[in-house]
């Protein structure tokens, strides 16, 4: 029995000891937890989790291995991972390899064999905060000192580290209209959705200018999800503001980080959750239909409700039933709309959002 020690030190000094099940090394980031039972591969490869240390509530992780299809980006994005127990043997008919191999390949630190529920309860009570995980330095003061030098998550422009470097086409030969995707850290599955429906998809870096985007003459714009606090990415907000001004009828569909961009572009406020919404069981009510969808989310921030209600242009469309925060909003004309959760075209609960967007795109043609 060879166990390799691993330590997690939180900004406030709280320490958790466990064992390494990933790469050797050290990683710092914003410590959060995710309560989803399924989908660890999608979660850790979603660029929205960049610079985060993620603790999984579900005790077994790695059970289905990793497969080539479910990557949401080219790599593991999270900075560090925490499990009750990593499954040494994986089993699933689609698996192409183990999670651990991927972590080792990408130098991702992961810790297991400790009381993850205690950690989650700690985060629940004290809020998310910076933390550092290490497999080589066990001196708490030293780790604290290192952590102090790491810039606060809330102050970083993380989008810039995950967005594509230049614009590119997906499905150039698509039979349908062209959709512009602003890549703040767009998960692959959204691009696949557009492609599967026959749309031409032009993906732009988050830093793309209004002119660059409009020059491609898209019939709809998709503001993707992504990591971090939107106020640090003012350039992205300005671009969308300008687009709205120039093309007030342009269909815009925004998700997660994208929705926060849309909120700021319309003069609303974005604030931080104490612990965030990360999991697959968030009930959201559509105010128009009164129907409820159980949604997957990965949010640390949300559009402030009163700022939307008081804004000239916006109205709340979806409410999170756990805490009554805004889970979706739209402009009053209805051509620009946003949700905090991850919709899926295949889903009977949230697919209608894509369908609405596609209708608008077709009408805009």
């Amino acid at each position, binding site marked *: *029995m060879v166990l390799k020690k691993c330590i997690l030190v939180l900004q406030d000094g709280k320490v958790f000891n466990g064992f390494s099940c990933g790469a050797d090394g050290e990683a710092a980031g914003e410590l959060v*937890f995710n*309560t*989803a*039972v*399924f*989908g660890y*591969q*999608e979660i850790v490869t979603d660029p929205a989790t960049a610079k985060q240390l993620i603790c999984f*509530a*579900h*005790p*077994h992780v790695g*059970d*289905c291995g990793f*497969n080539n*299809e*479910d990557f949401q980006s080219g790599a593991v994005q999270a900075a560090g991972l925490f499990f*009750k*127990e990593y*499954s*040494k*043997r*994986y*089993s*699933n*008919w*689609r698996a192409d390899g183990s999670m651990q191999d991927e972590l080792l390949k990408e130098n991702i630190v992961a810790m297991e064999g*400790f*009381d*993850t*529920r*205690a950690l*989650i*309860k700690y985060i*629940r009570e004290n809020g998310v905060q910076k933390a550092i995980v290490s497999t080589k330095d066990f001196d708490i003061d030293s780790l604290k000192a290192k952590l102090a030098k790491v810039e606060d998550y809330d102050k970083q422009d993380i989008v810039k580290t995950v967005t594509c470097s230049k614009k590119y086409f997906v499905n150039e030969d698509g039979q349908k209209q062209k959709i512009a995707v602003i890549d703040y850290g767009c998960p692959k599955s959204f691009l696949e959705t557009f492609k599967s429906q026959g749309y031409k998809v032009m993906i732009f870096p988050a830093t793309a200018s209004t002119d660059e985007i409009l020059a491609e003459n898209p019939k709809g714009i998709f503001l993707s999800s992504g990591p971090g606090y939107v106020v640090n990415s003012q350039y992205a907000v300005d671009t969308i503001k300008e687009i709205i001004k120039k093309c007030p009828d342009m269909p815009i569909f925004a998700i997660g980080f994208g929705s926060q961009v849309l909120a700021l572009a319309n003069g609303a406020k974005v604030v931080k959750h104490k*612990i965030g919404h990360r*999991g*697959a*069981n*968030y*009930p959201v*009510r559509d105010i128009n239909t*009164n*129907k*409820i969808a*159980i949604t997957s989310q990965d949010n640390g921030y949300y559009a402030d409700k009163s700022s939307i209600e008081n804004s000239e242009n916006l109205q709340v469309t979806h409410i999170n*039933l*756990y805490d009554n925060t805004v889970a979706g909003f739209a402009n009053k004309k209805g051509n620009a709309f946003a949700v905090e959760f991850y919709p*899926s075209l*295949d*889903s*009977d*609960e949230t697919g209608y959002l894509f369908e609405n967007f596609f209708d608008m795109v077709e009408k805009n043609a």
Partner: protein
Amino acid sequence: MPKRTDLKKILIIGSGPIVIGQACEFDYSGVQAIKALKKEGYKVVLVNSNPATIMTDPEFADATYIEPLVPEIVEKIIEKEKPDAILPTLGGQTALNLAVALAEKGILAKHNVELIGADFDTISKAEDRKLFKKMVESIGLDLPKSGYAYNMKEAREIAESIGFPVIIRPSFTLGGVGSGTAWTKEEFEEIVQAGLQASPISEVLIEESVLGWKELEMEVMRDRKDNCIAICSIENVDPMGVHTGDSITVAPAMTITAKEYAKIRQDSFRILRVIGMRHGGANIQFAQNPKDGRLVVIEMNPRVSRSSALASKATGLPIAKISSLLAVGYTLDELTNDITAPNPASFEPTVDYHVIKIPRFAFEKFGDTNTTLGTAMKSVGETMALGRTFKEALQKAIRGLEVKRSGYGLENVGVDKELNKLLESGTEEAKKKALEIVTAKLATPNCDRIYVIRYALKLGMSVDDIFNICKIDQWFVNQIKEIVDMETEIPNIFKLKGEDQKLLLRRIKQYGFSDKQIAIATGKKEEEIRALRKELNIIPVYKLVDTCGGEFKANTAYYYSTYEEEDDVVVSDKKKKVMILGAGPNRIGQGIEFDYCCVHAVLSLKQEGYETIMVNCNPETVSTDYDTADKLYFEPLTVEDVLNIADKEKPEGVVVQFGGQTPLNLAAALNKAGLKILGTSVESIDMAEDRKIFSKVLKKLNIPQADSGTATNFEEAKEIAKKIGYPVMVRPSYVLGGRAMEIVYDEEHLETYISKATDVTEGKPILIDKYLDNAIEIDVDALSDGKDVYIAGIMEHIEQAGIHSGDSACVLPTHTLSKDVITKIKEHTINLAREINVKGLMNIQYAVKNGIPYLLEANPRASRTVPFVSKAVSYPLAKLASKVMIGKAVKDLIPAEYLNGQLKHIDYTCVKEVVLPWIRFANVDTVLGPEMKSTGEVMGIDKDFGKAFAKAELASGTILPDNGTVFISLGQRDKSKGLEIAKDFIDLGFSVIATKHTAEFFRENGLDVKEVHKIQEGRPNVVDIISNKEVCLIVNTPSGQKGHHDGYSIRRTALMYGIPLLTTLAAARASIEAIRAKRNSDWEVCAIQTHYKLDK
């Protein structure tokens, strides 16, 4: 959409007696439903024939009918109560089938009663496989290839087009009765024939085999506004081919990705929609080919089920309660999740632990039956365990199963014995033999398979080898391998010191190993390991089941143990605090009756201002509902696990009287460890259990006892039997439900018994009693505080002494005993209760012969009959006993007139009848004997014995005929007494037929009786006429051990063709009375509340 106001009164249908496939889970769901609907202001009427349920307690429903679950009876209830709606989704298949019958007979339309929860259309679409297939295909989902057949010819054609192996499933049967897998043409013919017979509409589905595929289940709910939620996914460790009730299952599913989960979740919702399940919960099963991921829909249950009870316990979400509220019009978002209130119920629970369910079997009771598991359920109970990992949960679940294993491996029991021997011998030949056994056990599903994986690994098989043979997913096999690998580390504990020792022991505990296993592996005593653990501060913490993975604060107190850092339990400083130990998994002899008693203890002690702490590991039960006790610890019932909780909670005492033999077996060890046993002391328990001491007590009190002796080998046994004279009753000491008990008529038979019995007792003595032939057996339940005794009920058995009391019908009040005998029984009971200082309940069995009551046995604990007696006399015995246990005097609880002798008079007669699981166990003879075989019971209440017995029979599924031909076949000993019975049948207008000798004997005595051939006498013989349904009733008493082949064939054939069979003369006599009573008047129904009122 708020609740419906057009509905005022709702009738809930219960599930009737406990049978294989339908157990306590429906009491659990029914109780939730009644509580929820009453709270909403609805009037609730309940019908259920099972008295051993909490739901039939008079304080739950507004009107409770303990009546047979058949359309003509329920129609009477509808006429009387005029309910607006019937909620049929909480009473299992029984309630659904009854709802269908009520609809089809036009009863619902006639009385303008609506079905809520699931309407007729929905039930039909879900239950009729053909319609179901059509509907599921219409939404583009895949199903196994299949076809329907109504005769053999059609069946053969379908099988040809699919190719073997095929699965055969008869339509509309319970728990998969009659279904099976055919690998060959011969098997095919056999199963289809039986299936056509078992199906009430003679229809079988022949289906592509998905044997060895991954089996997945979803528990889902939908409301009126089409909001759907998935509560839980379940993955079967045993792949397709084993009924899910017989499979080891885990929650959540472990080997599917988010994409696959999203698909089965959405498919489930789409199935709810297309089937028209508008408001309520359902269970949907899928199979997935592990090679290519092809996913097919298997079936749907449009109701709460065993799986939904499991899902409720696994996630903390009360499915039955929410389902009931959806049925009256609420939507999910209008309801709160009690656990994380104010959060709404429109969410999906998430878990931060792992859940395992393991079924419990009773094959040892059905010696000759096939123990291979298949598509028809055979298990009689189950246990569930929660742990932070699969490994921890698995070992806890095995421990909770009470099969002499305190975890995975290390104990030399069951299948391990033979394999250990072979492995220890170490020769190549032995190894080869071991490998053969292991391979065979892996290849065919059976209840030992899980334990055999350990040996497969030890013999060098790889995880993939094992998967290839048994198709248990590699993930599970590898988890087991990790346990086995850790097992080899255990001996190192005492080689290490300091932190290293602590680290290793802690990890071993995290892998779920018990102190006992560690003791075995290290050659220490369990107590030493416990002491070391405490010294090193390796003690469990308790985590909360909170539906949300720790994201929100939870309001409930439902815990499981694990070896981690942080404890979620808040220990109150309340002084008045008691721990109540449950009964563990259901088994034959220990079932819902004991959970009923435990729940009563909780309710009663709560009322007395105590904090109640429930410990149990049976997910089906009311006792493990999170809002029954103040705190629920979902833990195995072992000394280690119970003491750990006691160390934490420091209760004033522990209640061991109510959970059957399970907690009683722990009493001495718990007491020794310093835990106070409430009520009857350990010394008193021992006094009743120890034969020698007990005999002395009886002598002192002048209570007659059948001659008896104790033997440890054949020679001794022979001597004793000779001295007291055959026939004798033999059994091992310390057993429940008459396990391995037999009536032995001669020496040869005695020798066979002893040679077989070593396995059961292991060094413990064998008890030999004089068997009192043809005596009347009496059961007495009494409450005592050591001074005053309240005799709650004296029950007279219908079957003669020698038939296990749990298998015998009985009647209260007694109907043939003389006043003298009753007086003697009362005296003995009172004297004995005082002498052994019973504080709480006691059950005594007597056999009355020639006017003398002989005491057979006394148990100073709650008995199986406590709920029946409580309901009969309207005193909640277990509740009163709980109060006695905390120091109240019986005289303060019971009116003075009933103390020390006077029985409470009741104006009606109550009959308890049992249900037997014969149909589940092929090739087993259906005779009753001293070993208990029944799974459940029903109660018939009416004005007189005949009517009450008729109701009890009807409720147990026996429809007594009113005319036709009765076949009588009697054992030698019964001939003369049978004459009277034949005469009565003829007087009632039946024709009687009999085999040669019996017929001759009857004719000699002036009866007009026709003769029928025995099997070897040519055709048509008796089996032929039974198969042709030319007889309507059979009286067949066994003719002893030898030459009973004809009797066996008669009994099995009767079973197959559903012809009422009476195997004792006493039952025949009672049946005659019932037929007579039924003829004189139509059924009448009466709520127990009305009975009680009239009685006062």
